[in-house]
């Protein structure tokens, strides 16, 4: 049996600032792609809801991007972007697109037709309708999409470290741990990325409840 402990807590306590730095990098590696992805998805989804024949092609294209396994996607970019930060950011961004576009479109479509008709009939301009009715009502599904995108990206961001150590993030602990056969680092990287994903998931559920008080207080909801 292996008598070395899986996790060397002494090492951990001596390297807390490294841990904090890598968590920070990981959050950055998650936030940037999700933010960019959300903006692109918002444009694509708004376009698709207004020009319905584009829904098919947009879904097919973002689906194709989603199908490429993460390690392959990072690898494919190396000849183009080298080992710059873009090599990690671009695939992580494209992964969010399918989820976000689909949820934003579903969000817009979830706005009941009678609500839109009432708004138009009462004299909302189309811009007022978008901002005051459609967007607020699409929020629950948008948030659900963001939640999924964030959690997925947290997981995929660890894979980027396989390509190289310049991206940082918790994947770097894992890779270094594997290279040096140091389980503490492996567990630290893996455990923290898992924890990060769950915390983000939880926070988004709270966020959604917080900003959609109307759906919480449903009379006889399911």
């Amino acid at each position, binding site marked *: 049996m292996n008598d070395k402990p899986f996790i060397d807590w002494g090492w951990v306590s001596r390297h807390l600032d490294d841990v904090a730095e890598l968590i920070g990098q990981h959050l950055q590696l998650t936030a940037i792609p999700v933010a960019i992805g959300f903006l692109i998805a918002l444009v694509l989804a708004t376009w698709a809801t207004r020009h319905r024949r584009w829904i098919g092609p947009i879904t097919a294209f973002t689906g194709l991007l989603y199908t490429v396994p993460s390690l392959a996607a990072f690898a494919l970019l190396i000849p183009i972007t080298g080992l710059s930060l873009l090599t990690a950011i671009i695939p992580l961004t494209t992964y969010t697109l399918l989820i976000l576009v689909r949820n934003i479109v579903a969000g817009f479509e979830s706005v009941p037709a009678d609500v839109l008709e*009432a708004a*138009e*009939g*009462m*004299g909302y301009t189309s811009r*007022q309708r978008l901002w005051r009715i459609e967007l607020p009502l699409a929020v629950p599904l948008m948030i659900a999409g963001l939640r999924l995108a964030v959690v997925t990206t947290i997981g995929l961001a660890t894979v980027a470290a396989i390509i190289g150590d310049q991206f940082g993030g918790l994947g770097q602990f894992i890779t270094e741990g594997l290279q040096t056969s140091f389980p503490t680092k492996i567990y630290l990287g893996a455990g923290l990325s898992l924890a990060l994903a769950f915390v983000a998931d939880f926070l988004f559920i709270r966020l959604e409840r917080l900003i959609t008080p*109307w759906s919480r207080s*449903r009379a006889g909801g399911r």
Partner: protein
Amino acid sequence: MHSQTTGHAVSRSRAATVEFDHVTKHYDSVQNRRGAAGAVDDLSFTVPAGKICVLVGPSGCGKTTSLKMVNRLIEPTSGRIRIDSVDISTRERTELRRGIGYVIQQVGLFPHQTIEENVATVPRLLGWQTARRRERAHELLALIGLDPAKYARRYPAQLSGGERQRVGVARALAADPPIMLMDEPFGAVDPIVRERLQNEFLRLQEDLAKTILFVTHDIDEAIKMGDLVAVLEVGGKLAQFGPPEEMLANPASDFVARFVGTDRGLKLLSLFRVGHLPMAEFPTVRVGDDAGTARRRSRTHAFPYELLVDDGRRPIGWIPDKAIPEEGALTADQAVPMSPRLDRRTTLKDALSLLLDANVQAGVVVDRHGALVGVVTVDEIAAWMRQRNASLGETVEGRDGTGASAEGGTEDRRAGPHGVDAHPAPAAADSP
């Protein structure tokens, strides 16, 4: 941008005349494939200010299309719609809509806004101050019978179907528009709630006197709600336009006759109440009267019963002529227990039904203290209706084909839900 609009009391503001002038709407095949509403063919009629005009017809007859052309959710292919003589196509769409109340079947309350915010929708669009919007919303909630303290902060999902419909009406009234468009506003609730909402709304309308265009596919609702009824047939042709009595008494075509149904005679009866009948003084005998005098008097009229009343003229029952004793005083136990007791507000349809049910010729009509008003017989009801229909027929013939007016022939239109003659309908406003 944001316009003026000063505050209005809840009761009685302005109303406007709505005029359809040869309005036609065609759909090309592409639009039809998208499930567009029915077409409309050369529609002309005028709704006088303060009246409820019900558009009724089978599905695909263009009634909803007609309604939506008034607030320009749909643009006519040709023809004009005028509000107080102003062609609506010259007005800016959103500004026009903010001045027209709009109620739809599925209500369309904004699920993410509280009831108070929902009601204050148009005032907000018009740029009212927060405090004033609030005050107005609370005022309207009270008006429709929802306690503001309890309901203002709720969300639509927390309301019952009937409550949502009422909020929909309140929202449409918020900026005190002269015109309301109502598209099957009570169509999504169960029949009992619907009946209550209809009555409440009619009561409200007595004070509000808005000009209302009301769409329904339910002929009974049309008859009940309409001062005027426009029957449309498939293809969007106006089959008949006029007061509901006229439509029931003299359907303009086979289509209208079929649409109103074979029981239109009974429907017509439901429009009138016992108080409409001319009730002559009815001879009575009083408890304690001398039997001999009563006996002699009974021979002066053909009716084989005497009506016995007490000192307060409250009817006790009928005494058959033959059962009147030779002498002594009349007592209560000599009378046969009474046939239906009606009051002035009983509809003629109900009165007739009660009479037939009790298998009697005559019903006693009493006032709210139980004192005798008169007696109604089956024959009198029948005779009165015959006479009415005859006079209606004359007015219809004397009218021009477009049916441009609401006045005519129906001076004593049935009362609102309160009862007879409590609110004689105001004379129709002058048309342009």
